[in-house]
């Protein structure tokens, strides 16, 4: 907890920059991995998916302020994400095989 509103504001601003840089670094690494093909494809694919997951969490949790919002926001959105994963997996399996 910080004292003055100014200090709190500065801290928020710094946090947002950190998130931004984290996302840029993850993106650059992802692109670099794909362009150079430094690792076997399976590993690159796994790393890419993990990076995407981290970016989604950072963005939703900090930029969309789920960390400070009402619990109901996160519950509804989590439900939506759960349904989303089910739908995409179901379609994938149904149409592909």
């Amino acid at each position, binding site marked *: 907890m910080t004292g003055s509103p100014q200090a709190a504001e500065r801290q928020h601003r710094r946090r947002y920059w950190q998130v*931004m840089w984290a996302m840029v670094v993850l993106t650059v690494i992802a692109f670099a991995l794909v362009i150079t093909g430094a690792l076997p494809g399976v590993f690159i694919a796994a790393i890419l998916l993990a990076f*995407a997951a981290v970016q*989604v969490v950072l963005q939703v949790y900090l930029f969309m302020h789920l960390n400070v919002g009402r619990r109901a926001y996160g519950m509804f959105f989590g439900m*939506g994400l759960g349904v989303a994963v089910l739908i995409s997996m179901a379609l994938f399996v149904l149409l*592909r095989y």
Partner: protein
Amino acid sequence: MIGSHEMPAAHPPVSPEQAKAQDNRVLGFWIFLSGECAFFASLIGTYLSLDTHTVGTVTLASLIDLPLTGLMTLSLLSSSLTMVFAFLAMNKGELQAMKIWLWVTALLGAIFLDLQIFEFTHYMASGFTMGSSASASAFFALVGFHGLHVAFGLFWIISLLVYSFKDGITPANTSKVWIAGLYWHFVDVVWVIIFTVVYLMQKVH
């Protein structure tokens, strides 16, 4: 209350009823966003399963230009940051700074759309069109709908800028910026998934 989860808003809502109405609006928007998750999930699932259904020699993998995708990603990512800055400025009651950040956000969104239109016209000129194969239809449906979302967000932000701040920053319009911000960040989240699953994965062997 909307802005007060994190720091006090410049003008707190005048009545408990108003605070509640604003809160419900945000809750409603989160429910809408969960519906959007399902919408994009259907398109992504369809794309993933039709991925290999190509016709002829023009494939997505041969067309994708990663530096262009990288540039699009960068513009959308930074527009998310500028949206957050607009929100911070709004919370401090700085109307002018908020407006400038919102314009920068809109500009970055417009750059993204412009690059996407360039990309699509290039693809179509190369014979990769909505009707050329199942994989191409799924690609254009997914990425095109995302582009439409960006275009709608652009329209939304600009109309906020033009119509909503004639009386300065008020409790009524802070929640509008908050919700537009949620939408914009969500569109960015979807792009993170699209550039990973569609663009980068095509190039992984």
